[in-house]
């Protein structure tokens, strides 16, 4: 890049000045020039204090060389980073300059449900021309984010980071602190992307199997084995390369709003401790993040401090955040490389002691293929990390496992303490069940194209495409909330939900039931519920429960406190939820188009007595 960082930015978000004028940001106490100047390192302004004026409006941006309409907050992509302080009460005046309803959801924040920003659940939404005032006390600290919960506005730009400083001194002081917002931008309108997926679900997959792949397999695996493998996939009518519904074919992956060519750059002095707060604010993209030449140490996930773990690469699910610390010692530049799970593109930035220096950008890996593990055949069950290396997944076939063995493998990991399954007569999600892996009748219908036969505990599995790494890949099993379990390990009830879908029809659901056909899940105020998720699809789903913590059960009495939990294909996992905030909360897959298609539930936290009475 020969242009100066400022020129590059100006060129890049062309809508900035225009949009700012149109949105009347001047009237909100910020001149466009100030906005531009305060973009700083992140590509978004940082706003701090107790009171914020946010204007959501249309603006033009030019990411790819073509000027396209976006929906932005205060005219910037990403939206301004909001810097709050734990213990404060914040007031946010959000004005809607769009011709349609909008909203802001504060992702991962504990707040009264009326402030949660989900139209239809928390409030009516913000009508065009209206200002809605959010006001709530800040009871936590860490890295979070915010985004629109209306239509597809999140895809077209309404997302930004929240950094909450601790009430008392930071236990992990650093020399520099960067927000790293990862996202996926498309020149297509999101409505168009969704309609396209409904018409031809593999539209964006340009990694489909060709006849030459089969010929290569004949040579490498032999004809018999190839036909055996093909038989399995062909009878299932599934694509082995379906890792992402929406890909680099239409997406440009952004770091702090900047494309790989625009190369976001952060400065450091050798020897400094640098905190990187990664936020996956994308609509549909899992990112595999690494910094060649630098190890990272995780200090927080989803805003919550964890016992530090050193690693080299991690997969960040949509809506998750991870705080890492790097300590580059030498006077050299490093590339922050975040490739999409399907290897169809990457976001990239540079950490450097000198703006003139940059580092090589690694090649993307070859796209991985789905295997037995992803089919829910328990391929990884009972295996540890090290054993996975070099294992030939294709060598196993379907017929070699007997049902008894599968049943065994599907049993609950960790301490089973005979927690009763929730049963509610008029809620099909909570029909009677004998085991968590059992598929309810509602899973047998046109909306569900497969069911995992032997879902397995996979918390220590780095996931598809990362199993054969020579370096340390961070997994949930490696982490633990700092200070030990933040709440009880003993649940009162267990709620089981299977993640289901039909890829070719582009239908997504829980237990085979779309949101439109669902009944709200009721949690009793104060209860400790265990939610067990079984992924019956071949996609990875980030599942987000609003308003309440999700304490992931790691076994051995360890918990990992999160707001969004990524569930891998074929995986079964459990987390504990303290229903300590009454109200109506959204619960959904955070892949935007999966949520829209029906992978969504309303969760109501109600008084136990009322719930009992209502059921009787």
């Amino acid at each position, binding site marked *: 890049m020969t242009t100066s960082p400022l020129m590059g930015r100006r060129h890049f978000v062309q809508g900035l000045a225009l949009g700012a004028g149109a949105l009347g940001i001047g009237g909100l106490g910020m001149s466009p020039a100030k906005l531009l100047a305060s973009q700083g390192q992140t590509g978004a302004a940082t706003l701090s204090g107790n009171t914020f004026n946010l204007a959501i409006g249309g603006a033009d941006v030019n990411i790819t060389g073509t000027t396209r309409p976006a929906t932005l907050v205060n005219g910037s992509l990403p939206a301004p980073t909001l810097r709050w302080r734990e213990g404060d009460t914040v007031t946010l005046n959000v004005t809607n300059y769009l011709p349609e309803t909008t909203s802001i959801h504060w992702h991962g924040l504990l707040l009264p449900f009326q402030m949660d920003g989900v139209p239809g659940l928390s409030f*009516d939404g913000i009508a065009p021309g209206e200002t809605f005032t959010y006001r709530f006390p800040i009871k936590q600290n860490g890295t979070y984010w915010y985004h629109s919960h209306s239509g597809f506005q999140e895809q077209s730009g309404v997302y930004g980071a929240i950094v909450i400083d601790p009430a008392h001194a930071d236990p992990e002081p650093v020399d520099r602190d960067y927000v790293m917002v990862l996202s996926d931008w498309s020149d297509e309108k999101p409505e168009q992307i969704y309609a396209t997926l409904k018409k*031809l679900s593999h539209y964006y997959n340009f990694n489909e199997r060709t*006849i030459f792949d089969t010929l290569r397999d004949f040579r490498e695996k032999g004809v018999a084995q190839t036909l055996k493998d093909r038989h399995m996939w062909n009878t299932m009518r599934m694509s082995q390369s379906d890792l992402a519904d929406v890909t680099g074919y239409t997406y440009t992956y952004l770091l702090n709003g900047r494309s790989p060519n625009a190369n976001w750059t952060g400065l450091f002095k050798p020897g400094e401790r640098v905190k990187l707060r990664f936020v996956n604010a994308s609509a549909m993209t899992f990112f595999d993040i690494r910094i060649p030449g630098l190890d990272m140490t995780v200090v927080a996930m989803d805003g919550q401090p964890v016992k530090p773990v050193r690693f080299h690469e991690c997969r960040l699910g949509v809506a998750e955040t991870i705080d890492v610390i790097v300590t580059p010692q030498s006077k050299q530049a490093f590339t922050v490389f975040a490739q999409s799970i399907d290897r169809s593109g990457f976001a990239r930035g540079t950490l450097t002691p000198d703006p003139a220096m940059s580092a090589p950008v690694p090649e993307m890996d070859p796209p991985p293929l789905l295997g037995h593990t992803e089919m829910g055949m328990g391929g990884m069950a009972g295996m540890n990390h090290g054993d996975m290396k070099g294992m030939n997944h294709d060598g196993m076939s379907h017929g070699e496992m007997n049902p008894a063995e599968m049943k065994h493998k599907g049993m609950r990991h960790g301490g089973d303490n005979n927690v009763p399954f929730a049963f509610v007569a008029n809620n099909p999600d909570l029909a009677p069940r004998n085991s968590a892996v059992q598929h309810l009748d509602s899973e047998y219908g*046109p909306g569900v194209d497969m069911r995992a036969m032997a879902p397995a505990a996979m918390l220590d599995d780095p996931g598809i495409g990362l199993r054969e790494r020579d370096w340390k890949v961070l997994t949930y099993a490696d982490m633990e909330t700092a200070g030990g379990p933040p709440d009880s390990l003993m649940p009162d009830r267990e709620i089981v939900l299977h993640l289901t879908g039909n890829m070719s029809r582009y239908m997504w659901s829980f237990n085979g039931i779309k949101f439109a056909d669902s009944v709200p899940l009721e949690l009793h105020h104060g209860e400790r519920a265990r939610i067990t998720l079984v992924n019956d699809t071949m996609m990875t789903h980030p599942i987000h429960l609003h308003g309440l913590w999700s304490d992931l059960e790691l076994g051995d009495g360890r918990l990992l406190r999160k707001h969004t939990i990524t569930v891998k294909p074929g995986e079964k996992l459990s987390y504990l939820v303290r229903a300590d905030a*009454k109200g109506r909360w959204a619960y959904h897959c955070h892949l935007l188009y999966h949520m829209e298609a029906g992978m969504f539930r309303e969760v*109501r936290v*109600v008084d136990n007595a*009322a719930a009992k009475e209502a059921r*009787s």
Partner: protein
Amino acid sequence: MKQAHLITTAALLALSPFAQAVNKHEPAFSRVIVDEFEARDADEGTLAAWEAAAWYGGDLNKLYLSTEGERLMDNGGETEGFETRAAWSRAFAPFWDWQIGARRDWQPDDPSRDWASFGVQGVAPYLFESEATLFVGEEGLTNLRLEAEYEILFTQKLILVPAVEANVYGKEDEELGIGEGLTDIEAGLRLRYEIRREFAPYIGVNWERQFGDTAAKTRGAGDDVSETTLVAGVRLWF
């Protein structure tokens, strides 16, 4: 039960001070696909042939409209015959839909035929796009039609599509010269290049042959019962 419902509603209203319910409305989508729009070098001259469909609806219920036919382009042009169909399509299994509807055959020189249709369409194991439809016409006419299509990828954009269609009649249609039993099989092999997913020119070969009494009647009229043509056309959808 009713009382319980009232209590739940009351509890809900207490929780939510706003009126608007969560939007559970399922949006409808539509797709128009011109699967074949091509020229064929037939013995009697250049034929234009088409096969197109459109659907509108949600995940489970769709309205389908489709048409296919041929028109002679030389000597001033003459439509040889075409059919139009309308059907309500209902998903009943992960990969399968029922289709119930109607079909009309139009022929310039012959009486048209109306049929009720009962079909099943979907993706069979090994990813064969398949369709089986029973048409029930006037005066006891029946027509069973079986269709299958497969995609072989040479690259992500260069795709070879073998397709086959067979028709069986339960009863002779004397006026139209169609006999009882297997009447005809049509097989095609088309190689398309997807410039975009939505737009793909193709070339190929199409083979048609009549069988049994139908073939005998055609022979009796002095016409060929089999024809192989080269085709060139374009596939598009939106």
